[in-house]
């Protein structure tokens, strides 16, 4: 489950929608098994592990998420436009602080993860040009 505030922030932004070339292009990675668009960009969000770096009574730590931007490689392998989309995603989600979405899950903060940005890649499975960004999201997972 992803905190809804992140998804809402991305799908409700008209500038990001323009960069992506339309709506309905943002999905959770584990919910798709094939390339979700043959005619342009799409974004996949993947929620990974939660790390507790030291034993803590709070039992909370940042959860790693990666957000990938893909475009079918037969259309173009221009990574500047992919990077521009990642930059817009940064602008939308990094300022989130102590905010809740419609699911009531409060996100305390979002910071860049490591590595913050990937190299330019080709995804041989989806046959796309792709780059991704990594973030650490601190939120009340156990309240979900």
């Amino acid at each position, binding site marked *: 489950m992803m905190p809804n505030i992140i998804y809402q922030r991305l799908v409700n932004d008209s500038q990001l929608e323009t960069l992506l070339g339309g709506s309905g292009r943002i999905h959770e990675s584990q919910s*798709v098994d094939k390339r979700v668009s043959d005619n342009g960009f799409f974004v996949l969000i*993947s929620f990974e592990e939660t*790390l507790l*770096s030291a034993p803590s009574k709070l039992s909370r730590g940042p959860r*790693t998420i990666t957000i*990938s931007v893909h475009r079918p490689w037969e259309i173009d392998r221009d990574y500047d436009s992919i990077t521009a989309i990642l930059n817009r995603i940064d602008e939308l989600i990094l300022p989130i602080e102590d905010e809740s979405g419609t699911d009531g899950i409060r996100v305390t903060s979002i910071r860049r993860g*490591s590595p913050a940005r990937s190299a330019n890649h080709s*995804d041989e*499975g*989806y046959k796309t040009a792709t780059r991704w960004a990594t973030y650490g999201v601190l939120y009340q997972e156990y309240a979900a």
Partner: protein
Amino acid sequence: MARTRVEYDDARLRKNISNFDNTFRRNLRAVAEFQAAETTGWLKTNARWTDRTGAARSGLYAIPNWGPGFIEIYMAYSVWYGIWLETAHDRKYAIITPAMRIMGDALMQKLNGLLDEMQP
């Protein structure tokens, strides 16, 4: 006026200091060996694909290696298509990349307490 006299034999201190580098390196290698064994188990347990032959899962391993000035842990697949599991389909079947974060964090936690736990 009271006088205090302290006598101590610094031979043990000198010996421990002169042995410190070797002892520390030996402990680092022990931690790396332990972490590699733990990581191998973690990789096989947490690989997030459905097995067909079991070869990909059983062929995952982590091994420690060291030389002058470095200690490292290799993680690798034994099957030729491991690279595609790791990089294709938005990396949804990747296991080594998350292991670098998760097992790397576990390794750092062990190293953080290493100096405190070293025996003379």
